[in-house]
């Protein structure tokens, strides 16, 4: 539990005046005088902290900053885009070394990138990039493509079952106010509807709520005793789908004749275990650790030295996917990391973020 250490530090900082001035000193270094001297503070603004994925994003940046001898400051918008704008304003005023953020709203932050530029603070975006403005470096994941891949996989497994792509699939989609989830839904459903007309897509929302996910999957299972497949847009809610199947005695391992095809996206530590145990058919991986590490590398390597981030192929053997592409986007250079399948065969590769989180960082996804 690294958090406890943090809290002690902060509590001491809050209560004791002496320690407080030490904390203040860190900030003072980033004051107006710091134009020549680079600040040691790395600022971070996350749209949520309530989900494990975002916890990993933040942890990755914390560790990366630490490894570079830098200070970390992080804020949480809790799903409110106005709060995110306010956080950006407050963080920028302190003139950090750079500001890294995952956008809750790809439009509303654009004017702030201009403000950041006038203050001389480089901005890096991860996960959800902006649709305009000046961002020094963005690293993202092709969410739409991950949905397409899940759809193709589902079609393939149904073909194996029936001889041709047909049957029914529940897409228990998440909150559409989150851009990533919206893109996954579109990729998944449009692929099935346009290419596989005999597959019936039952599209039902869970609003990023565990209880809603459980209720919707349960109800659909009762309503459709013949349901062939379930797709969850993120691993976070696979637990609820599994619980619903278990309650109705319809949870069977992959290969069993009554097995319901289950696909999801993220490749979180939980999913890694399910893949290994043959409890889930396919999980498509993104790489939160890579987003953060790469964006910091790009900012340190190029932006802080006054150079633009070069476009073109990007290669890094440190990550499982190894190759990506940096392209020009409306907001600046954008590295898109390709989605890939997490399989039984590749599950033990230490470069999966799930393995890094559990084996190297010793973090656990499930509390207790």
């Amino acid at each position, binding site marked *: 539990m690294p*958090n406890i250490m*943090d*809290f002690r530090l*902060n509590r001491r*900082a*809050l209560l004791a*005046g002496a320690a*407080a*001035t030490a*904390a*203040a000193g*860190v*900030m*003072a270094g980033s*004051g107006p005088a710091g134009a020549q001297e680079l600040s040691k503070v790395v600022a971070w603004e*996350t749209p949520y*902290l309530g989900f494990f994925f975002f916890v990993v994003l*933040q942890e990755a940046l914390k560790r990366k900053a630490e490894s570079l001898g830098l*200070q970390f*400051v*992080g*804020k*949480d918008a*809790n*799903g*409110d*885009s*106005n*709060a995110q*704008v*306010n*956080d950006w*304003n*407050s*963080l920028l*005023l*302190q003139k950090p070394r750079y500001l890294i953020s995952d956008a*809750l*709203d*790809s*439009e*509303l932050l*654009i*004017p702030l990138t201009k403000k950041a530029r006038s203050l001389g603070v480089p901005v890096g975006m991860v996960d959800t990039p902006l649709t305009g403005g000046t961002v020094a470096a963005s690293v993202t994941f092709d969410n739409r493509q991950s949905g397409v891949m899940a759809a193709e996989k589902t079609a393939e497994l149904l073909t194996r079952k029936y001889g041709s792509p047909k049957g029914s699939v529940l897409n228990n989609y998440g909150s*559409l*106010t989150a851009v990533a989830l*919206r893109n996954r839904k579109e990729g998944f459903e449009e692929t099935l509807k346009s290419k596989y007309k005999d597959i019936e897509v039952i599209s039902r929302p869970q609003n990023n709520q565990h209880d809603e996910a459980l209720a919707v999957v349960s109800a659909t299972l009762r309503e459709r005793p013949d349901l062939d497949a379930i797709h969850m847009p993120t691993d976070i809610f696979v637990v609820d789908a599994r619980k619903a199947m278990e309650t109705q005695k319809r949870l069977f391992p992959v290969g069993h004749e009554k097995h319901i095809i289950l696909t999801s996206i993220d490749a979180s530590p939980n999913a890694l275990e399910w893949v290994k145990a043959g409890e889930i058919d396919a999980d498509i991986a993104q790489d939160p650790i890579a987003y953060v590490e790469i964006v910091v590398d790009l900012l340190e390597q190029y932006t802080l030295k006054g150079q633009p981030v070069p476009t073109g192929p990007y290669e890094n053997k440190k990550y499982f996917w190894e190759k990506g592409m940096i392209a020009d986007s409306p907001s600046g250079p954008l590295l898109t990391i390709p989605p890939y399948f997490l399989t039984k065969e590749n599950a033990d590769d230490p470069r999966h973020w799930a393995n890094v989180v559990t084996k190297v960082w010793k973090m656990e996804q499930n509390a207790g």
Partner: protein
Amino acid sequence: MNGRKFLLDNVVWILIIVFSLLAGVLNPFFLSEGNLQNVLVQATTLGVLVLAVSFTLLIGEIDLSVIGNLVFSGMIGAYAMQEYGAHWTVAVAVTVLTGTLIGAVNGYFVSYMRMNSLIATLAMGLFLQGAVLGATQARTLVIADEGYGYIGSATIGTWPIMPVALFVIYLAAHVVLAYSAWGRNLYATGGNRRAAHAAGINVRRVRLSAFAAAGFLAGLAGFLYASYLGGVSVTVGSTTLLYAVAAPVIGGVSLLGGRGRVLGMLGGTLLITVIQTGLQLINVSAYYIQMIGGAMILLAIAVDAFRVRGEEQESV
């Protein structure tokens, strides 16, 4: 005795100073000019919402649809420009008018159909936010118009002009609530509805108009948010409702109606904003910010409860 009463009445300002100094000790930057601007800008949008909620609290009711209202009327204003090419002044008028109409509908529900305001406006808020989600498909409506965005982005020297809107609106609210016949009718209706009715005040109309005024202010907030953020999306302000209700209470507005000064509402707004910006600037782990923020609001309300108790003792 009077000194004590003065202290208690102005406790919100004392807390603002205490919290500011505390934040200043933890990060000297908090007390800088740049951050003062930051605090005032953030207080503007919240402050208008606080006024909106306060107008309904004064008659002993509550409007929980203000967030839904601000997003919805902001969206209508944005559509007016994008789809119909309306001039920005027209768009502002449309935004505010939409808000007022929604408020009047709330008022009709509560005053004439005798629906419970807590539930009716909660449902109205859900409906409006859902309507925005449906109409925009969760996408952001970008507002590029310079005139529309002027208040939210322009500066004089280094000073943003947005806080001017805050003070103008609060000054107007003060004049209306403290000196106009309509304003005093609000207090009378909230303080004792039956007595106000018996004294010849058209209580139903006053109650409807309080909600219409709340809607007007929510529409105004919709304009200010859109101007400040440069666009409208359904996620705007989703965490603000609680603060918009807490701030008036911290500033001494009674949930039972009939009591509350505009200066107190302003104090409540600034205190909440100081807490929020303070937490944005202090190096506290994000995991604990919500907890600390909640505890500080609790503290402020506890101090207010102490004040109210003192007042009651006096009148025994």
